[in-house]
C-alpha cells in the first residue's frame, strides 16, 4: 500500500446489534461498517446508541484489475435476491 501509514481517530455510533455482529455509523457521515462480535472490544454489554471509537485509515484500491471471482459471487447473490423478490 502506498498510503498505509495515515491512521485517523474516528468515532461512530452503534446502530444495529445482532447476536453475531454489530453495525456502526461513522460520525461525520463518513460511512458505515459491520463487524463480527469478536472484533469488538467492550467493557459493557453492547447496545444501540453507544458510541465507539477506532483508528482507521483510507481505503486504497490496490490495482485497476477486477477480480472475476468476486464479480461472479456478487452477481450470483444479486440473482438469488431477485428470485426471492
Amino acid at each position: 500500500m502506498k498510503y498505509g501509514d495515515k491512521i485517523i481517530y474516528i468515532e461512530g455510533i452503534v446502530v444495529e446489534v445482532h447476536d453475531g455482529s454489530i453495525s456502526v455509523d461513522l460520525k461525520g457521515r463518513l460511512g458505515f461498517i459491520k463487524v463480527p462480535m469478536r472484533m469488538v472490544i467492550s467493557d459493557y454489554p453492547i447496545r444501540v446508541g453507544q458510541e465507539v471509537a477506532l483508528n482507521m485509515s483510507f481505503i486504497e484500491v490496490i490495482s485497476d484489475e477486477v477480480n472475476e471471482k468476486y464479480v461472479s459471487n456478487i452477481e450470483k447473490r444479486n440473482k438469488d435476491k431477485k428470485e426471492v423478490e
Partner: protein
Amino acid sequence: MAITLETAKEHANDLAVVCCRTEAGTIIEASNLEDPAIFPDLEDSGLLKIPQNCLKIKDVLGAKLIKTIDSLTPLTPDLLEGVQVMKEEKQEEVKEAAQAVESRPVASVVQAAGGVVKIHIGEGKNINLEIPLSVAGGMVSGAQTSEVIPAPQAAVAAIKEKEAAVVEAKAIRRLVKKHFKIEKVEFGPETKIEGTTLYIRKNICEDAVNVSNLVTSIKVEIITPEDYNKYSETIMDVQPIATKEGESKLGEGQTRVLDGVVVVVTGTDEKGVQIGEFGSSEGVLETNIMWGRPGAPDKGEIFIKTEVVIKENTNMERPGPLAAHKATDYITQEIRDALKKVDESLATEVEELVQYRRPGKKKVVIIKEIMGQGAMHDNLILPVEPVGVIGGKPNVDLGNVPVVLSPLEVLDGGIHALTCIGPASKENSRHYWREPLVIEVMNDEELDLAGVVFVGSPQVNNEKFYVSERLGMIVETMDVDGAFITTEGFGNNHIDFASHHEQVGMRGIPVVGMSFCAEQGALVVGNKYMKYMVDLNKSSQGIENEILSNNTLCREDAVRAIAMLKAAIAGEEVKPAERKYNANVKESNIDMIQQQTGRVVELVANEQVLPKSKKRMEIYEVE
C-alpha cells in the same frame, strides 16, 4: 503513559525517557517515565530519538531535573542534577527474591525431567503494544508474589513424593474407533451402506427441512474429487460421520466412523447472504480449502455437502446458524443409523485410543479457548453422537464457564463447532476429532495429561474476566506443572487469552500459548506471563487469507509447543519476540527440535500449493 515502580525496577537497565512535560526542579520518579517497551514503536514513528548519552532508569530515579522538558525527551546527564545509581542493596534484594521463587521449581524439574530438551523459543509478535487499564489493573504484582511462593514448594514436595514411588502409566479410559471405508456415495431409495457404497435417501431433504422453521430449503450435493473445481457457498463446518455403538458413551467404548467421506455444512439466507458473512470462503472449492489440515477435508475425500437456506436476516442471530447445523445433522443422523446396522466384518481398520495417566511425570493441562460471543461464535459441547446436535450444550448458554473433557471425549467428537468466521483460523468440528495437540500430549510418555479444559470467550470484558478467574481456580485445584492455552483466530478473544495466561501464570505454572498472530492477528494485550508463545500461522503473508483451516493448529505446532513447555518447566528462558513477525523463528526452532530429539518434524504445506484463485493472485499476492 507513566510507569509504576515495579515496572521501573524490571526495566532498571533500560533507557530513561520522560512520558510527559516535566518542570524544572522535579525529582524524577517512576511516574515521570515512559514505558521502555514502547520505545521501538515510538522510534519507528519518529516521535523519539534516543541519544547515545541517554541515562538508564536506575540512574535517574531520585535525580533532580534542572530544565523544563517536553514529553518524550530522553534524560541525559546535562538535564539532571544528583544522578545516582539506584541503591545497590535494594536492587539485589529484589533480584534475590525473584531468583528464590524461580530456582526452586528449576532445581526439582531439571532433576526429574532428565533429558529434557532445552530450547529457546521466542515467537509471536511484540506483545506489549498496549495494555488497557482494566487488564493492567489486575496485573499489579505484590499480592501475586505471595501467592506464587507457596506453589513451587508444594510442587517440590509433590514431585519428591512422586519420585519416591515410581508408578507405571495407568490406562484409565479406552476408545475403539472402527473405520469403515466408503468409496462411492450415491442417492437411492433408502439410506444404507452396502460394501463400500453409501446410499443417501433421495427425498431426505423433504424431511430435513422440517427440523426447524427457520430453514426454508436444504439441498444435498455429493462432491467427488472430480467436482473439486465447483462453486460452493461458504463452508461453515467440516464434520466426520461417526456413531456410537450400543450403549457406549462419547469418549469411551466403541465408535464407528466412515473413512473417505465427510459432511460439509454450507448455507445462506433467503437473500443469498452467506451465513456468518465476514471473510466468507465461497467460491471454487479447490482454491479455498487447505487439504489435510486437521479440520479440513483430505484430498480425495467425498463430500456430502449440504446447502441450507435459512430465513432472511437470521444469518447473524443465534438460531440461524444453529438451524443450518440441525438440518444437516438430520441427514448425518440417518447415515449414522445406517452405519450402526453395518456388519462389523466390513471394518477396514480398528484403532484403539488409550488415555493414560502417568504419575510421576510432569502433569499438564490443555486449555482450549473456544468462541462464545454468540451466533456464529458458539459450540455444542458433548452431544450424544460424535459431532451430533442432540444432547450437546451450547457453551454460550453455559455462560462460557470452563468445562473439563477427557482427551478421548475431545477426539470422539465432543465438540460440535458452530464457529463460522475466519475461514483460515477457525477450528472446525473435525479439528477436535483429530486435535493434534491433544493426540501428541496424550501420547507423550514424559507428560501426564490431566485433562482438556474448554473455556468460552464471551463478548463483554467483565464476563471474560469472570470465566478466566474460574479457569484459574480450576487449574489451581489440578496442581499441574505446566499448561497449554490455545485459541482460534484473533480479535477480542485475545483479551481473555491474555487473562488466562495471567490466571495460570500467577499461580507459578509455566504456560505455553498458541494462537494465530503473524501480521494480522497481533495480540492486542499482553502480560508478563505470555512469554512462551507459538504462532500458528502458515500463510506466506501472515494473514487470514480465507483458505479453510490454513492457519490452524497442526502437528508441527503441537511438537513445538510441547518442546517449549518442557523447556519452560525446566526453567529455560526464551528469547524475547522480535519486533516484526519473522517466519524464520519457527524454522530454526523446528531445526533445533529435530537435532535434539532426532525426530523428523515435517512441515505442512501452505496455500502456495493450491491452484491460485484469481482473488488470491490479485488481492493478496500482487506480483
